[in-house]
């Protein structure tokens, strides 16, 4: 893609395929191409078609077309690079859960403790621990509340919060 005309022809061609075209088509690959092929194709394209390279040589409409075409190819690249993780052919409707990995109702209860919460909650929990070590009870309470917001299901966090709040209440009368 050396010339402006070639770039615009490429963008027009991509946009003509529509927003839901199969990803390999947008990257000009064979069906079934793997993640490495997708990565190579996308990097090769980025070197010549990245919109920043053409910002000053195109009209506003032409530039918008190149940006949109590039964005769609980037979306296709994302799809191919993670294709193994999930099928992209199923289109779950609003109202039906997409193959929920719901455990049987008599599934074992996860062990209570910091390891049972999600990562985001764990980060806040660690911050709360840090605050507690430094005697900042109020800060610890806020961090715990944030942890609960991140993982409302973790009973462990609620217990910890109750404990710290009780601690604060004990300190107040002094």
């Amino acid at each position, binding site marked *: 893609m050396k010339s402006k005309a070639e770039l615009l022809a490429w963008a027009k061609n991509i946009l003509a395929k529509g*927003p839901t075209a199969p990803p390999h088509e947008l990257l000009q690959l064979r069906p079934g191409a793997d993640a490495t092929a997708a990565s190579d194709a996308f990097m090769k394209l980025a070197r010549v078609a990245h919109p*920043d390279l053409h*910002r000053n040589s195109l009209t506003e409409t032409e530039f918008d077309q190149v940006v949109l075409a590039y964005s*769609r190819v980037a979306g296709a690249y994302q799809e191919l690079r993670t294709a193994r993780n999930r099928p992209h052919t199923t289109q779950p409707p*609003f*109202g*039906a859960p997409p193959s929920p990995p719901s455990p049987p109702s008599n599934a074992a209860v996860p062990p209570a403790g910091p390891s049972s919460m999600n990562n985001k909650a764990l980060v806040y929990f*660690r911050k709360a621990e840090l605050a507690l070590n430094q005697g*900042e009870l109020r800060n610890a309470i*806020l961090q715990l509340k944030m942890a609960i917001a991140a993982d409302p299901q973790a009973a462990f966090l609620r217990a910890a919060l109750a404990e710290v709040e009780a601690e604060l209440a004990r300190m107040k009368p002094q």
Partner: protein
Amino acid sequence: MSVALGIDLGTTNSAAAIATPTGVEFILGPRGERVHPSVVAFPNSGGVVVGGDAKRYRLSEPQHVIHSAKRFIGQNFRAPMVQLAMTGVRYQIVEGANQQPMVVVRDRQLTMPEISSNVLLHLKRCAERQLGTQIKDAVITVPANFTDGQRQATKEAGRLAGLDVMRLINEPTAAALAYGFGREKQQIICVYDFGGGTFDVSILRLDGEVFEVLASEGDFFLGGDDLDRAIAEVLAAECNRVLRIDPRPHPALMMKLMMGAEAIKCHLSQEDEAEGEIDGLDLPGASKPGQLPFQITRKQFEELTSGYINRTIEVTRQVMVAAGVDVRAVSEVLCVGGSTRIPFVRQRLAEMFRKPPNTALNPDEVVSQGAAIQAGSLLGTLHGGTGMGARDAVATAGHSMLGGGGNVVLPSHQAKRPVLMDVNPATLAIHTAGGFTERLLDKNAPIPIERTRVFSTSRDNQTRVEIDCCRGEQRRYADNEPLGTLVLDDLPPKPRGELKIEVSFRVDADGILHVRASDQTSGQQQEAHLQVIGAPTVGEQG
């Protein structure tokens, strides 16, 4: 000759620079300083004071000194993070329209973009005075983990300051650009950006002029301020023990201790021990100001702050996994942000990467250098000399090569434009019934990006569809951060599954999300756009 400003709008300090044919020129403040405190004061004497001068009012009228606005900009007032950050400031913040946090100064309410626009306007004016030319275009840097709302609000701040914000770029990416532009090398680097208020870490692959971000991670509420607070807590305990006064209920006293703590922290980056006294303490009930002696060793400081430092190392490990890169593959670790001056931070990085980090760049200036290079590139005025100069930047006060009347001769050779391939900072998804999410855009996908998926209705004769959008990696909708809801109404009644609704998620080069939903079945394509909670409302945007 038009000039574009590269601006590093920081939590505690800001910096600005422009790319010149021979290097990067820094914008200097009224006293010749390159670093401009991100502080805006509305003193009783009237007017608006910005930068170093505004800091002087911190003790006399702290309720009128607005600092750390970056911790609130574009956030939802009700977010726990915001509530926590509010405990660390002495000015008043209330909830405004669209759940925006608003600063109360006397009888006025100001939005966070309005506060930040004062800092940007200050930088713009300094630049115009220094370069002798009008400035319109700018590139502003933001933390890599900034959300849509925060990015939109930062752009809004630029607009309010009379700037045309050509691009928002991520701070670690800007630092990588300052380091790598003009080198034409192939390598993988890690940018460790530990600033005053935020922590970011990015892994990039440099290949000639291409800067590809492989992965980016961060903690928006972790910075040098937290380390100051850790020391201030020790000082507070000392105060209680020695002077028999608990300073924690006295904000003015705590502020003084925080300022002392910051000075002690900086001292301990050079020396093994800090010993002295904090004087001028207005102790409640005392007739004259008191003094607090202190003695803190570097070892004690490291113990106090190791929790925070360990957290940054933990995030760095996470990002290496996300990038699929081994520590041995990283050929350079760039230290960015003032907190990387702490020897313990450098030591931990050296342990992790098994080589000393690169500390040759000025950690306070490298981000604005990168922003300046990107600004020059987008304007098409970048030259080969800029890259070399970026590493040996010389500030030439008052007599710029680009200013002074326009008789400037530029070298004939144009530099190869850098290609910045940044990434989407968080997974973006929609709510499907049953309480789960369906991902549209992945974290660390290249931007700009667009992805469209077709969904359908779940009930017969459903005429209304609500599309809840969220940000986060969790499978359950409720565990993620809600962004807003898109509504398509008056759909033609059809049996379930027959209606085709296209949902498009697009993240532009600024990292800002645009969501569109349209009904494909009825000939009339109705569309809806998303208004992100906490962001400036659509009417306010330019």
